[in-house]
């Protein structure tokens, strides 16, 4: 059986810099996969290639057997890949529930005319979208803050709201870019629970994270990047022992000498 997401020799060049150099890896249905590496290794660039924010300069990315080449981001979301952002990108002036409703956009269809006439189908759709948004807010534990403006939420809650917005799009794969960034230990622990509950819903998770305790605890498979190239891949135990990974993170003996 082929994997849900297959990345084959994906390459991205910015001017003279090869940010991602022939990176290949698979994400299997139902797994939690971590993408790690030192700063500037090209992790977020890989994410942006998957979600269509960047065009690849080489290689292929297939999702559920379908090539994502040339598709615009909202189409990729519609196919079932949702994401969060490294530097939180919420709709700051909208309330939490309106942020989550934005995620329902691609699964609903009422247009301007239906809205102005309040056709029965439009009203039903609005009600269902509101129910789903409320349920997603409960899922991440923000139901009580539904009416708060996104910008008034705490940092950790903003991260959770981004996850709720992503989940509202009915994804099969969610891509989380440093979900624990700026969180304290308790919040990170809670986040691991949340990620497991996402997996329990049958949603595959791919995440970038610097917090090694989270990666080692939550992920079943880890891909390590350095200077845009994949240097290791496998289960946490194996990756932890890998000589090149240790060198990438701690430096080599020669450098120390």
């Amino acid at each position: 059986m082929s994997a849900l997401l297959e990345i084959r020799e994906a390459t991205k060049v910015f001017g003279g810099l090869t940010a991602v150099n022939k990176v290949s890896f698979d994400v299997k249905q139902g797994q939690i996969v971590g993408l790690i590496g030192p700063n500037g290794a090209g992790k977020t660039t890989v994410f942006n290639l998957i979600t269509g924010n960047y065009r690849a300069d080489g290689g292929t990315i297939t999702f559920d057997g379908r090539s994502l080449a040339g598709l615009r981001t909202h189409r990729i979301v519609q196919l079932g890949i949702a994401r969060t952002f490294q530097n939180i990108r919420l709709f700051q002036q909208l309330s939490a529930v309106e942020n989550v409703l934005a995620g329902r956009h691609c699964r609903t269809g009422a247009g301007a005319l239906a809205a102005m006439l309040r056709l029965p189908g439009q009203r039903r759709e609005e009600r269902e979208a509101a129910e789903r948004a409320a349920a997603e807010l409960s899922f991440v534990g923000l139901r009580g803050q539904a009416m708060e403006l996104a910008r008034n939420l705490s940092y950790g809650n903003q991260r959770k709201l981004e996850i709720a917005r992503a989940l509202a799009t009915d994804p099969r794969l969610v891509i989380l870019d440093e979900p624990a960034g700026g969180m304290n230990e308790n919040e990170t622990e809670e986040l691991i629970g949340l990620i497991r509950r996402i997996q329990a819903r049958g949603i595959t998770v791919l995440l970038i994270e610097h917090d090694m305790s989270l990666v080692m605890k939550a992920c079943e498979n880890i891909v390590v990047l350095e200077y845009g190239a994949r240097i290791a891949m496998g289960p946490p135990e194996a990756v932890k022992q890998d000589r090149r990974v240790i060198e990438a993170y701690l430096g080599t003996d020669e450098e120390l000498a």
Partner: protein
Amino acid sequence: MSRRLLAGYLAVAVLIGCTPLFLDAYWVDVLCNVGLYALLALSLNLILGDAGLFHMGHAAFYAVGAYTAAILNTRLQLPILWALPIAGLAAAIFGAIVARPVIHLRGDYLLIVTIGMGEIVRIALVNDLGGLTGGSNGIFGIGRPSLFGWKLRRPDEFLYLIWGFVALTVFLFHRLAQSRFGRALNTLREDEVAAEGSGVDTARYKLMAFVMGAAWAGMTGSIYAAKMTIISPESFSFWESVVVFVIVILGGAGSIPGVILGAFLVIGLPEIFRGLASYRMLFFGLALMVMMVVRPQGFLPLRPVRFREADVPPEGAAP
């Protein structure tokens, strides 16, 4: 819509409805103008306030609507109010065609292009486009509108036509604001990358904002043509686009009551201070500058949360 806002709208509606009883024809005509600008500002608000697209060529859509209605009326003897939906459609199509190649531009770049678009339309009209627009003299002899066999002539009759259309527009636009469509426009204004990443087709919705805004400006144009019975390119100058832009920003971008208040302030106040003659524009400019420093969000800014607590189901079912 909250109860307070509804009460406010009703109070304004009753007040305007009664004005012909105690105001003379001149002031009723001023109120008609305020209504026309309120309509233009409401339509621009979809583009500038809701979607956050800097568009300073709105007079072009207004002109396309006015000229479409005027040409249909004078050449084909189509009753002017029948031409209203056609004028809206013509302006919407025009809006879609001119906006398509430029909507990927951001902020001030889009602003400059839309200013250019407005000027191109005005100059095309002056040059008697296709022998239809009458050059700089414009088109005259546009038929009076009639509603259910009642011919509209006096300012107070137009007052009811114009403000009736304002009321309808406010009603429809409030519904639009609280819908999937309205929320999609808001996500564009807040963060385009996040909007696209949440599954909103940003290019399509930017275009739709222009199409809807242009359609309403076009319909307003046909009412203007009906009221004036004569239209010429100078009614659709760059200055008109600036005035409508200022109304939206001053009143409160994205806020429907704010935009209506803006129309009263920008169009109505200078009339009240007409006694100050040439100084009034000086005061007007000064007021604008003070406003931008003291209250940049506008007089009646957008009340951020449109989706009410009552609309969200209680805690319970898991997704």
